[in-house]
């Protein structure tokens, strides 16, 4: 009768999904790039102790790492099996820590400086001597907020 009469069933238009894979792929690539594996090449081996009273590290940009452990196999020949300290990409001595802390602190924004944290990633089998030396240096450098990195038990 009228112009607007339904001409039978209206067919649902099909959705074009051909671009969906591309979309998912770009999310995939995003995640692959964003999840950075680890920034520094480790030259010491460490297995952190297991604890129960652990807290998460909130803002990773505020955290500087100090690695303490046995040198990896390729360096062990040269340096022996004694525990060593690694700062950034190279082996360091206890005396270098203060400088390292100052550099790390300088790299932070002014308002973040008081919240700087030092994460000590120490090997289970390390002796306390080296750890206490490091702690003493950290105290002298006024880096008093320290985290002993560990795994949840």
């Amino acid at each position: 009768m009228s112009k607007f009469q339904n001409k039978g069933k209206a067919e649902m238009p099909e959705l074009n999904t051909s671009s969906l894979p591309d979309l998912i792929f770009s999310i995939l690539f995003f995640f692959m790039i964003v999840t950075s594996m680890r920034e520094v090449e480790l030259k010491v081996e460490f297995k952190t102790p297991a604890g129960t009273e652990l807290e998460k590290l909130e803002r990773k940009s505020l955290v500087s790492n100090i690695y303490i452990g046995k040198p990896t196999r390729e360096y062990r020949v040269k340096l022996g099996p004694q525990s060593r300290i690694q700062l950034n990409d190279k082996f360091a001595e206890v005396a270098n820590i203060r400088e390292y802390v100052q550099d790390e602190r300088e790299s932070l924004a002014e308002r973040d400086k008081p919240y700087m944290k030092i994460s000590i990633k120490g090997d289970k089998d390390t002796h306390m001597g080296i750890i206490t030396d490091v702690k003493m240096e950290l105290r002298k450098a006024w880096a008093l907020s320290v985290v002993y990195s560990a795994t949840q038990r």
Partner: protein
Amino acid sequence: MAKGKRKVPGLNGSSMADISFIMLIFFLVTTSMDTDRGLHVRLPNPPEEQELQDPPKIRKRNSLIVNVNMNNQILVTQGEKQAVEVEISELRTIAKEFIANPEDKVDYPEKHAVELPAPFGVQMVTDKHVISLQTDRATNYDTYFQVENELYGAYNELRDELARKTFGRPFVQCTEDQQMACRQYYKCMISEAEPRTYNQH
């Protein structure tokens, strides 16, 4: 002879999305965001000359000395009592008893009336107690860590009990102010003495 161009059959790409979804989920699961966990501690200020010469006096009853020797044995000296060797598993109970002093015993830390944030008001707390952790240079880091873990665990358990009693929920679910109040009720007083090398003299 070829009859002109042959038509290439269209590839069905509808499952491509599923495949890439699976890959996406795989990467999401496997690449751990490197969640770093650890025991948060606060180091004391750098030592001053004067402090080294005459260390602050602590009354005997207020001190709990935990000594870990080079053989990773733990020796606990509480106040005037005889030093006893303990296992790591016992340490938490000992520390809790010492920090809280629930029965107000004379050989446990003395209590003082201290103004605390609401809702506590003025409370009797053991604000002068000190747990002193002493290690040898040859002590194992793992043992030291376990001892620290137990000591901090003692504080955390006490705060949790307090939070449950006062606010009716666990410490972790309390608001920031409530947590702060609980922290001040049981103030963390772990002092780490400079290490000694006993086997040298």
